[in-house]
């Protein structure tokens, strides 16, 4: 039960960080310029109207009072009411998470496979022609602005070739897909809706490809570096000096040792993917979490900003925790 103790200790360590995030976002949205009430009422609204609206959202209360209310709500799982839409922030967020997770999970999974295969291949040919090619590809992928890449893919895939649907929406509305989880591909599979599945996959193709390029590049470099480390380790050199068959060397020694580092790399790359997703969702008008959070930020919708920032931070740190635990389970050498 060492692992359980480790998890509990790490979760306890997260509390001050998350509390800091909560306090910081709460203060920053309020201290910095911008008024959420003015964004819904317009600049010409009378002072009395604005005051009434402020009172409705509790913004006339002293700061400490607002903060305690917010914190009390958080503890009972209530994220507050959106100033823009008047709806429950928690319910709105639940609608938006599915589409984004669908994008990120598919893209990161593909990227992990591609990066592992190419990274190991490249390391085994270190400093030869193929290796240089892979490294240049990784550098290029690292340098390409993903929102522009998305546009270029739309230009080629939709405007010129017409192979993919227009960058608006996530599934063809004519397929009558019943929403369940919000992730269209999953919903189509669950309801056995074949046409909807095909349509959702077609809509997913270009945004996923855009994300994959952005994610593969940094991942590929790290996989290559760790594979090189394994190749030069004494254990590997000894094994190959003993004349073990190539297959055993490749799968039993090189791949196994390299794969150990994948969970940590996947966690690191997850952050990159979240950031890129905001841009990719914008390019493809993908109604996901990123678009929702962005609009909240632009309209100074305090509850939406607070909720989305907290959720992103929470996901991010939890992903790191999960990666550490998986690593500890896979690798008996890790002492936790």
């Amino acid at each position, binding site marked *: 039960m060492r692992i359980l103790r480790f998890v509990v200790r790490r979760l306890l360590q997260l509390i*001050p*960080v*998350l509390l*800091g995030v909560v306090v910081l*976002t709460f203060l*920053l949205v309020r201290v*910095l*310029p*911008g008024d959420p009430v003015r964004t819904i009422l317009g600049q010409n609204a009378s002072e009395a109207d604005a005051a009434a609206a402020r009172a409705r959202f509790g913004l006339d209360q002293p700061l400490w009072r607002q903060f305690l209310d917010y914190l009390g709500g958080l503890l009972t799982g209530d994220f507050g009411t959106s100033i823009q839409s008047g709806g429950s922030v928690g319910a709105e967020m639940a609608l938006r998470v599915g589409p984004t997770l669908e994008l990120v999970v598919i893209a990161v999974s593909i990227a992990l496979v591609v990066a592992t295969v190419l990274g190991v291949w490249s390391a085994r040919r*270190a*400093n030869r022609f193929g290796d*240089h090619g892979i*490294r240049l590809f990784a*550098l*290029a992928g*690292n*340098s*390409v*602005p993903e*929102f*522009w*890449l998305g*546009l*270029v893919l*739309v*230009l080629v895939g*939709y*405007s*010129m070739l017409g192979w993919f649907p*227009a*960058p608006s929406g996530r599934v063809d509305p004519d397929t009558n897909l019943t929403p369940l989880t919000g992730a269209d591909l999953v919903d189509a599979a669950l309801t056995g809706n074949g046409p909807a599945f095909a349509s959702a996959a077609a809509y997913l193709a270009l945004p996923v490809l855009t994300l994959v390029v952005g994610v593969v*590049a*940094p*991942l590929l470099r790290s996989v290559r*570096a760790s594979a*090189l*480390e394994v*190749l*030069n380790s004494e254990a590997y050199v000894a094994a190959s000096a003993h004349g073990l068959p190539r297959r055993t060397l490749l799968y039993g020694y090189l791949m196994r040792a390299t794969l150990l580092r994948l969970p940590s*790399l996947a966690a*690191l*790359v*997850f*952050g*990159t993917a*979240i*950031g*890129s997703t*905001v*841009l990719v969702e*914008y390019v493809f008008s993908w109604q996901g979490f990123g678009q929702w959070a*962005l609009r909240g*930020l*632009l309209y100074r919708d305090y509850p939406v*900003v607070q909720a989305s*920032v907290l959720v*992103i*931070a929470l996901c*991010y*740190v939890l992903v790191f925790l999960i990666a550490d635990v998986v690593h500890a389970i896979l690798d008996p050498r890790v002492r936790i």
Partner: protein
Amino acid sequence: MTDLRTAGPAEAPKAVRGSRDSRFSRVLIITGSAILMLVAAAALGAPLVSSWGATEIDPASTLAAPGGSHLLGTDSNGMDIWSRVLYAARLDLGIAVAAVALAVVAGTLLGLVAGYRGGWLDDVLMRAVDILQAFPTFILALAVAALLGNGTVNLIITIAVVNAPAYARLVRAEVRTQRELPFVDAAVTSGASTVGILWRHLLPNSLTPVRVIAPLNCGWAMLTLAGLSFLGLGVSIPTAEWGAMISLGAADVVGGRWWTSVPPGLALFVSVLGFSLLGEGLQERANAKRR
């Protein structure tokens, strides 16, 4: 918890045996520098090689295809794409370099003090760094930029704030190991002041990883800047900036008019690639030296 893309390695670059390849790294450094010099020359020489101003409108032709008096055509406002791509290099390059410089200075100072003093100051600073690093870097930049508002100075501050924690952590780690070395004890014994030790002994010795990472970071800063402008959180319209130009032409691209968004994106891509090549080359050289 830094972004893989931001800063390369979170700790000092590790030596990987068998990666010695001085010729390849030399090619990388030379190509990267050449690209960057070309971009800088384009930025400086923009008025010489373009016939239109950065925000000059040609009312006679909007969305004109490339050719004629407009080398790369015009956008929906009738502004010349070629001229704007060149002028934009000034802003993109300038903001990125200024922001990274600010981040390096601020992060290094914080890391130096935290690492040398230790104690509560170290605790407070590192907890602040923890909080800032609890976010994916682009998300943090997005939030800070949205809250600060548009403008060049705000963009520089935003990108610096996002990147400074990584440098603080890096320098702090170096200082903490070096503080224990005999040469620091020797300096203390011989009566050197704290500031003198920090400035003359610890600072120069802690900067090696920073030097390798800064160029990569400049490339990332350009991508962030353009990404923010693309979302409408960067420079104000109609300033010539690559991300804003791509955003302005996005709707036309869907209609098949490529010239509004493709050239600025290509310029951005090539410039960032310059920084990446340079950074990769420097990193490889640093790795080779460590052996």
